[in-house]
């Protein structure tokens, strides 16, 4: 186990190096710069700013300076929010996005697995089709349609829930964003569960168990559940990272202040250090969650041992 973790950590180093280098170059090569304004600044003012943010140095040197600071845990100053360092901005944004993401994932996993199992056990019957149709509505309705619809119904017409804001994660502010993200995830999880359970039910060890005359319910939860979960678990690791970045629609529409908006606005405003910060954070999280997924996998699947 320990050697597995060390191996993963060592593998992460070249990944992060390539990741930071490519993103850095891509970002800096994009047209425009963080301090480009419509009126244009007098050259001496621009020179002062460039000097302050090291933008006057050669690109490679800037990258090395950035890497050096990064190793000390310093993501650098924001080019867009001058009163903040990226460290100040990333963590609160991450907390917001992770809170929404975690609740959404929790509800999606519970309801997705339940729906998927029900569909699989009633395969090709009306129950199956209607469950999968409802689940799929969540996938096919884009979030930017779902969010305004939810607001129209629950905030403007019914006046039950606030139309936006975060207020430190107060429950009523969480509901609509979480619903909007959950509906998007449920369908995927339900589909994967359905497919997986069907496959497991057709496998020899289940047939053996059935032949032995064990009760069906017992077979499902004692024998089939764990192997059924394998593909679901491997789906969840990367998807969590995806939920964080994909939340930009939620952030823009509900004004939650999550990391997705930071990321997209950072790219569009050429806030170099913000984009780099989010990229590094997501990269690390991707590696981390993949490792966690593998470990969880090992617990479920007796065939894998580290």
């Amino acid at each position, binding site marked *: 186990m320990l050697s597995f973790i060390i191996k993963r950590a060592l593998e992460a180093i070249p990944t992060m190096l390539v990741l930071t280098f490519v993103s850095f170059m891509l970002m800096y090569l*994009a*047209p*425009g*710069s963080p*301090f*480009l*304004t*419509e*009126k*244009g*600044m*007098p050259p*001496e*003012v621009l020179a*002062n*700013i460039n*000097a*302050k943010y090291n933008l006057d140095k050669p690109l490679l040197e800037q990258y090395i300076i950035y890497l050096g600071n990064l190793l000390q845990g310093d993501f650098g*100053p924001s080019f*867009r*929010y*001058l*009163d*903040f*360092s990226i460290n*100040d*901005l990333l963590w*609160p*944004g991450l907390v*917001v996005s992770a809170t929404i993401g975690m609740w959404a994932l929790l509800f999606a996993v519970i309801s997705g697995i339940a729906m998927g199992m029900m569909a699989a056990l009633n395969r090709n019957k009306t129950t199956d089709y209607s469950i999968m149709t409802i689940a799929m509505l969540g996938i096919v309705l884009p979030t930017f349609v779902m969010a*305004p619809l939810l*607001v*129209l119904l629950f*905030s*403007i017409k019914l*006046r039950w829930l*606030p*139309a*936006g*804001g*975060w*207020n430190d994660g107060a429950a009523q502010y969480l509901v609509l964003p979480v619903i909007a993200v959950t509906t998007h995830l449920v369908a995927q999880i339900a589909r994967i569960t359905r497919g997986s359970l069907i496959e497991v039910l057709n496998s020899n060890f289940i047939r053996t168990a059935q032949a032995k005359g064990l009760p069906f319910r017992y077979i499902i939860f004692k024998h089939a559940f764990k192997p059924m979960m394998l593909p679901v678990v491997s789906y969840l690791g990367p998807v969590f990272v995806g939920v964080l970045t994909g939340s930009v629609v939620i*952030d*823009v*529409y*509900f*004004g*939650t*202040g*999550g990391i997705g*908006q*930071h990321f997209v*606005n950072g790219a*569009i*405003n*050429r806030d170099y250090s913000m984009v780099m910060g989010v990229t590094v954070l997501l990269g690390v999280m991707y590696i981390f969650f993949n490792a966690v997924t593998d470990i969880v996998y090992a617990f479920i699947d007796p065939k894998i041992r580290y």
Partner: protein
Amino acid sequence: MKKTKLLQSMLLASAVAASSLSAPLMAADVPAGTKLADVQEFVRDNGAEPGSLDPQKIEGVPGANIARDLFEGLLNQSRDGKEQPGVATSWSANADNTVYTFNLRKDAKWSNGDTVTAHDFVYAWQRAVDPALASPYSWYMEIPMIVNASKIVGGEAEPSSLGVRAVDDFTFEVTLEGPVPFFVKMVTHTTMFPVHKATVEAHGDKWTQPENIVTNGAYTLAEWKINERMELTRNTNYWNDAKTVINKVTHLPIEAASASLARYRADELDFGNFPTEQIKQLRKEMGDEIYITPKLCTYYYILNTQVAPYGDARVRKALSYAIDRDIITEHITATGQLPAYGLTPEIIANFDPQAPAYASMSQADRVAEATKLMAEAGYSDSNPLNINLLYNTSEGHKKIAIAISQMWKKDLPVETSLENQEWKTYLSSRNEGNFTVARAGWCGDYNEASTFLDLMTSTGMNDGKWINAEYDELMAASKTMSDPSANYNRAEEILAEEMPIIPIYQYTGVNLIKPRVGGYAYDNPEGNVYSRDVYIKAE
């Protein structure tokens, strides 16, 4: 993004000599008999997250809106845009208008209880030009020609050599290199607001964080969650706190107009915005909550005269004439905008722009003239002109570009391809002359025609690189004239003859304000509003 441009204007002072005001002080001016609500909280959509709350670093409307609540400069603006006593109660100038003396009130306090002194202003103003701070607005200090400002920004002199001085704790003196008549108007702007030296020095870039900040305005910062909300609470040390009604101001950085409208309708905002296509519906639903006011801004297209065939004035004029501006203002922008035929908006102070000849032609005549000009320039249906029209990503710009491209296509031998680029790429294309026709807009930096007309001089923000010696001379000469109207009119005439830019419409500001809000200065010409003037009526 679109709001980063600064609107704060400096109305050209007509009378600049010694003045001392006896006008009523601005504060929440609640009419007698108004029943106030128990909860005095004001929630407004501020359009975007400000880049900074440091007065010397602020660039753009969202930051300025908040800074006016947090800080108070030497002077404030009244509802109709006139200057009013702020920290200074009176001021005077010497005979040749180069030395200004401001007398500060003795009861002005910082939120930590310290007295606001002339030294705070000296520190703030020196800071604004200090290369070490690298303020994106340091150029603002160069405009009124404060002694040594340009040299300091350029790194040739020490910040301490700036022409500002605290004669004593309550007397602040500014020395200019030349008589700039509108200087007094400029001090209502955030760049010239004071900052608390000890706080700034103790916390560096982080002094504006809620736990550190010390302010001298009616409010102080309680909470700042980027992209979510900013909460301001009452500064009980503010000298005019007794006249302030609102206890808590919340600024929300809502970028999407549709989200703003949703939250306004869910009753979460007192002051909001909406997508313009909803105007007809909203007029029916909440007509008395819509406020439309003219803005000091012009929307236009730039033609790149360095690229063929846009060096040909006939082509430029034809393209301009074929645009039916009434359709655009009535059906597309549809919120009270006026068609523009010249660069300077009609509401500009101290100048009454003459409409150019083509403004009074009928659209049919203009199209006929345009057709003729295009034919003369050698274009026909078998040899059409292919235009690439550049605009920055925005629903509004997109709609106008589509309509104009179709107007050209309908009446002229022109095929247009549209190119939409996001803000920074668009700016870089414009700066580098990488366009043929590009959307542009300009809001006055101050309420005087030169802020518009100077754009088209050979040294102005003239991305189309149009050069006209007579125009340059007219504008240079106007600087020292007591009434430059004749020069301005001639300059506009040249623009109409040469058409280096195609004026399209004059902006309006459009907002939703709840009926319960009182005292909101929606008619301030530059949109400068102080939350301390506002009060919430009982419903």
